[in-house]
């Protein structure tokens, strides 16, 4: 049984990346029995949103966001969580060789079928791009054949040509059945979402704001072999 369990490793930078960007997909695979391991390189302790009204300060934020992430993991069905203890906003300054080695070690240990990370160029934040770059390097070092995907924001990859990709490079995951879990994960990240009024409307109203699909850029040959509506 355990040898047949499908596994997914997500290597991200901040608490909330997993929920806001691809929470529906993670919830979908978790409910289908996929074992999910999440890395958050930082604790998001340099975030700007401190609750609304504010109840955090710079020194209390790391612990608060760790707790929030643990709750979000429960809402999404993520079983394993690792922090790399890198200070928020400094991932790009971490030793790239050590960082890649550390991720490579985790890839060997977890032995996932699918790896998710940020696109090195289109990650949208220096920490995102840096962790994406390190993960690409890490997978190379392992010489393992794992399907690598880059997460993307909203429905930007409906038009992949803008980013130098084609439809064949994109996996489009239907997450219309996971809106409840995704919304619960948004709400778990309370200090970050209190400012967004829509998150706290009724479930029905709030879920209407969540898209039906999440999009992933295929990051290697192994991913290109897979279907366009499934990461596995």
């Amino acid at each position, binding site marked *: 049984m355990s040898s047949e369990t499908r596994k997914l490793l997500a290597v991200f930078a901040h608490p909330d990346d997993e929920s806001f960007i691809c929470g529906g997909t993670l919830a979908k695979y978790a409910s289908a029995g996929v074992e999910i391991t999440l890395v958050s390189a930082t604790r998001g302790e340099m975030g700007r949103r401190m609750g609304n009204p*504010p109840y955090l300060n710079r*020194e209390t934020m790391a612990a608060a966001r760790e707790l929030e992430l643990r709750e979000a993991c429960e809402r999404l069905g993520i079983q394993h969580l690792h922090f790399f203890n890198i200070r928020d906003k400094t991932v790009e300054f971490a030793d790239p060789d050590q960082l890649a080695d550390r991720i490579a070690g985790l890839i060997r240990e977890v032995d996932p079928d699918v790896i998710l990370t940020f696109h090195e160029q289109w990650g949208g934040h220096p920490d995102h791009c840096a962790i994406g770059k390190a993960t690409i390097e890490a997978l190379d070092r392992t010489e393992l054949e794992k399907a690598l995907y880059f997460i993307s924001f909203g429905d930007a990859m409906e038009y992949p040509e803008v980013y130098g990709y084609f439809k064949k490079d994109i996996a489009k995951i239907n997450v219309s059945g996971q809106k409840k879990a995704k919304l619960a994960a948004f709400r778990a990240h309370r200090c970050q979402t209190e400012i967004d009024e829509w998150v706290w409307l009724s479930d029905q109203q709030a879920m209407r704001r969540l898209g039906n699909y999440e999009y992933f850029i295929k990051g290697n040959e192994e991913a290109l072999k897979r279907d366009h509506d499934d990461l596995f």
Partner: protein
Amino acid sequence: MRPIIQSEVEELLRVFIGEDIYVHSEATSYVFVRNFKVKLSQAFVAGDGPYRVAFRFDQIGWLRMEALTHYELDEESRLLLAGYDDRGRMNVALHIGKEPFAE
């Protein structure tokens, strides 16, 4: 964190005068410095809210920040000052303590 009362913050700052302190200072969207160590010689609070705070250092140098709105003396006796906007977003922070802050 509570809204700044100038006289109370001035009194809390007095404890750090003449001491070696560690400073965390940030303008959230642009810059942060963490754990620079200086000897504080003077500390000032000015304004009607938001407030301006300035430090003078023992040998040479200034640190001046504005837009500070809230303060707290935390459980580790560190003085935390911060400036929030009306929706809870941090604009600035200025923390001082006698021990280093967590890296």
